[in-house]
C-alpha cells in the first residue's frame, strides 16, 4: 500500500516534470522553422496587415515575454485562441477529444479484457492446438501494419460489402432531422464499428501475448503446486491463483496505453476520417498553430504523467509486496 506521504511526494514530482515539459514545448515550437503567418498566406495580404496580425498574436514581443505570458495564461486556464480557427483552443480540443476517447479508450479497454481472458486460456492449454492457433493469430495481429489493415477492412467491409460507412462519425442528414436519441446513438455506433474493429484486433494481439507469457511463468511458480496440493479445482487454480498474479504486468501496459489513447492515432484517424485529436495535432503542427499544438501536447503530457502515477498506486494496491 502507498503511504499518503509518498503520494504527496509523487504529486510534487509530477508537477515539476510537467513544468519542464511546459517550458520545453514552448521553446521547441519557437525554434521550429516557419512561422504561423506564412501558413495562412493570402496573396491579398499587405505587409501592414501582416505586421498587424503578428502584433495581434503577440509574436512581435521578445521571447521571454512571450514565455511569461504563456505560463501565466496556462495557470489561469487560458490556452489561447487557435491561429488557424480563430476559436478558443479549449473548445476545439474538447470537441475533438470526445471522439478520440470514444474510439481509442473503448478499443484499448475491450482489447485488454479480451486479451487477458484469451491469454489466460491459451497459457492454460499450452501446447494444444487451441494455444497454437491463438498464439499465431495474436502474433499476426500484433505485427499487422495499421494503415494496411485499416484500408483492407475499409475496402472489404465498407466498400465491397457496404456493411459500414466509409468514414466520419455520423450521418449529417440524420442529425439535422428530428431523429430520436436512440437512432443517433445507433448511427455513431455504426460509424464506430470499423475503426474500433481495426484497433481492437491490433491491440488484442499484444495483450494476449503479454498475458500468455506472464501466465506461463506464474504457472511454474510453487504456489500453483501448493494450490493443487490443497485439492482446489483446476478452474479455481487458474482464475484465483494464477490469473490474478499474471495480470499484474498487463495492468501497467493497459494503464499506459489508456493514457496514450488520448492522443489518438494519427494514421487510424486519417484513414477513417475520424475527427479526433490525432488528426488535429498533425494539422496544428504542420500549420504552426502554436496554441493548439501546445495545448494538445500539454494535455497528453498531463494525462500520461497522471496515468503513470495511478498505475504506480494501483500496483501497490494489487500487489501487497510493493510498499512505497
Amino acid at each position, binding site marked *: 500500500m502507498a503511504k499518503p506521504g509518498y503520494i504527496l511526494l509523487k504529486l510534487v514530482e509530477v508537477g515539476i516534470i510537467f513544468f519542464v515539459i511546459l517550458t520545453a514545448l514552448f521553446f521547441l515550437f519557437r525554434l521550429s522553422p516557419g512561422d504561423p503567418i506564412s501558413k495562412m498566406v493570402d496573396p491579398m495580404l499587405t505587409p501592414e496587415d501582416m505586421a498587424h496580425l503578428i502584433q495581434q498574436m503577440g509574436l512581435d514581443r521578445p521571447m521571454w515575454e512571450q514565455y511569461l505570458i504563456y505560463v501565466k495564461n496556462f495557470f489561469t486556464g487560458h490556452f489561447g485562441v487557435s491561429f488557424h480557427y480563430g476559436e478558443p483552443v479549449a473548445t476545439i480540443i474538447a470537441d475533438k477529444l470526445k471522439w478520440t476517447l470514444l474510439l481509442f479508450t473503448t478499443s484499448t479497454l475491450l482489447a485488454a479484457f479480451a486479451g487477458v481472458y484469451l491469454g489466460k486460456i491459451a497459457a492454460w492449454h499450452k501446447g494444444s492446438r487451441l494455444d497454437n492457433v491463438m498464439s499465431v493469430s495474436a502474433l499476426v495481429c500484433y505485427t499487422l501494419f495499421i494503415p494496411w489493415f485499416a484500408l483492407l477492412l475499409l475496402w472489404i467491409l465498407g466498400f465491397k460489402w457496404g456493411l459500414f460507412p466509409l468514414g466520419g462519425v455520423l450521418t449529417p442528414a440524420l442529425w439535422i432531422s428530428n431523429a430520436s436519441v436512440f437512432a443517433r446513438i445507433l448511427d455513431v455506433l455504426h460509424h464506430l464499428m470499423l475503426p474500433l474493429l481495426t484497433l481492437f484486433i491490433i491491440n488484442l494481439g499484444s495483450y494476449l501475448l503479454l498475458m500468455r507469457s506472464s501466465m506461463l511463468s506464474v504457472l511454474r511458480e*510453487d504456489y500453483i503446486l501448493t494450490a493443487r496440493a490443497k485439492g482446489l479445482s483446476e478452474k479455481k487454480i487458474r482464475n484465483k491463483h494464477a490469473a490474478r498474479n499474471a495480470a499484474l504486468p498487463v495492468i501497467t501496459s493497459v494503464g499506459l496505453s489508456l493514457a496514450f489513447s488520448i492522443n489518438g492515432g494519427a494514421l487510424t484517424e486519417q484513414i477513417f476520417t475520424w475527427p479526433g485529436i490525432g488528426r488535429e495535432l498533425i494539422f496544428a503542427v504542420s500549420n504552426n498553430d502554436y496554441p493548439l499544438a501546445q495545448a494538445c501536447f500539454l494535455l497528453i503530457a498531463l494525462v500520461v504523467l497522471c496515468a503513470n502515477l495511478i498505475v504506480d498506486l494501483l500496483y501497490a494496491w494489487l500487489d501487497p509486496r510493493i510498499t512505497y
Partner: protein
Amino acid sequence: MSLLSVDHLSIGYQTKKGMLKAVDNIRFDLEKGQSLGFVGESGCGKTTIGMALMGLLPENAVILGGHIRFQGEDLASLTETQWQTVRGAKIAMIFQAAMNALNPVMPVNEQIKEAIITHQPDISKTDLADRMKELFDLVDIPARRMKDYPHEYSGGMKQRAIIAMALACDPALIIADEPTTALDVIVQDQILREIKKVQEATRTGLVFISHDIAVVASVCERICVMYAGQIVETGTRKEVFKSPRHPYTRTLLNSYLSLDNLNDIRVPDMKESPDQMIDTDECRFAGSCAYAKGCAGRSPDWIDISPTHKAFCCNPDMIRRGHGKS
C-alpha cells in the same frame, strides 16, 4: 490394513531420448501414526514418489506398474476429479517454504481457509474461525499475524504456515518434501520438532523426504535409503544408522561430517549416477561400489538382516556379516 501400501511401483519419465525409469519397483508400507523417511541424493526418485502419492506427477510421467493403496483404495487409478477430493483432505503435502510456496498476493489465513472450505464447503463461520485459531496455535504463530501476507513472515514462520495448511483438514497422511532444506539449522531444528510434535499429536502417517540423512533420522522411525530409483536399504532408524549394511548407505553416512570422523572424512570417489534410461536388473551401484567383486551381470536381491532391516545387494555374505566399523 496398512494406511499406505506401495507395491512394485515403477514410474518413468517420457523424454525425447526414451523412457527414464525414475522409480523402479518400490515397495513399502506405512501404518497409521508411523513415520517413514526417504533419503538419497538428488535425482534418486524420492520426490517422484512423493508426487505420485499426491497425484501431482508432471505431465510426462507414466506409472509403469504397481499399486499405491491408501486406506484400501488404489490411488494409481484415480481420475483428476477424484484426486481433488483426496488432496489436501486425506493426503496433504508440506512443501519447502523458501520458494513461493505461498501465494504472494493472498493473506496467509485466506490461503489456509481455502484449503478447509474446499473440502468442507458447509463449514460455519464460527467453526472455521475456531479451526483457524487452533491451527495457528498448533504451529505457534501468534493469532495477530494470521492476516499478514507471506512476505511479511520470516522463513520459519512461512514454513509453519505451510505446515498449518497441510494440517487444515486433518489428513491421514502427510508427505513432507524437503521441508527444512532452505532454513538455517536453528530454525530447521524448531520446524523438525514442530513436525514431529504435530505428527505424534494427530497420529498422522508421515512420509518424510530429504537428502539430509541427519534430518530424516531426527524425525522418522523407519528409513528407506534410495539410490538411482531403487530402495537399497530399509530398516529402523537405529538399524540403518548404527549398522548400515548396504555399501551406498555406508558411503552416505561416511560422507557426513561428525566429531568422530573430523580428520577422517571419507568422501568416496563416486562415479556418475548410472544411466537410468537403460532398463536393467543388474546392480546400479556396482560402478561406484568399493566392495563390488564379481557383481557385474548379477541381479541384486533383498537380504534380510532382521525382521525390519533389509538391504538390496548381490553379495549376501558381506551384507549379513556387516563389513567392519563404518
